[in-house]
């Protein structure tokens, strides 16, 4: 099977680590800026960006086939339904 292309170099991994550490700094910095309700959204946005980096590079999702990509996206989709519908319920009680 395709072997060679499925290896991340140490350099790539290290740069991703640096990016993750930098984003941690950004999220801590952003928490000192008062944006009201948007603080949570900024924090979640940065966290999602970090999560994407971990998923794509550390967890090799970038190299995976359709079965894994689609099943992962479905999980995220169902998570969104779970969160969305709960809020729908709570907001209109």
């Amino acid at each position, binding site marked *: *099977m395709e072997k060679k292309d*499925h*290896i*991340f*170099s*140490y350099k790539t*991994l*290290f740069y*991703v*680590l640096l990016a*993750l*550490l930098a984003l*941690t700094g950004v*999220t*801590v910095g952003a*928490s*000192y800026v*008062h944006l009201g309700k948007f*603080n*949570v959204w900024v*924090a*979640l946005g*940065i*966290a999602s960006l*970090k*999560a994407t980096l*971990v*998923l794509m*590079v*550390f*967890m*090799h999702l970038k190299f995976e*086939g359709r*079965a*894994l990509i689609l*099943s*992962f996206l479905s*999980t*995220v989709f*169902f*998570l969104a339904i*779970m*969160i969305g519908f*709960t*809020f729908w319920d*709570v907001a209109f009680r």
Partner: protein
Amino acid sequence: MISQVNEPGKTDEAGKKLGMWLFLYTEIILFGGLFVLYAVYLTRYPNEFIEGGKELNRIFGVVNTIILLISSFAVAAAITAVQKDQRKLALWAIGGSLGCGAIFLVNKYFEWGHKIALGIYPNSERLLDGPDGQNMFFGLYYVITGLHGLHIVIGMTFLAVSFGFVLAGKVTAKRFALLENAGLYWHLVDLIWIFVFPLFYLII
């Protein structure tokens, strides 16, 4: 993928990985449910949650985030090392991530210990007599960080087993699904922390 299974002496590495991912999806939904609880109570008790967040020590949060990110990097590097047949480096990397996990748990011990000393623990008088939102915040704090801590322990066990298999030469460049799956689990634990950290420690 299919041809691999039919060849004698070969195992279905892709299948093993898919199985791990299916398990990880259930973990995502498990923690997702807890995050839903967090989100709902955050909108109900925004002020108490902000007060609660101020009680948590940011230094512990930041240090533990950095530790987990480094350990995730180490595990990813260990897989690259195994793929390149650099066994010694792989062992060092797995050992390093195990060390990071241990430091994380020690930090957690001191952090929880400090909170408990202040009278903040499930069913404590301070929480029961205080506002409901505060009780909710720390209840979720203990459940989510506790469950996450349990995952750290399981992940470390899984990594330690992989360490043994790499040492024994049973994990090789051609067959490393065990280490890869241990790594996937470890990264998931890191992923959860990436969301726990800002939601609990950085909320203002």
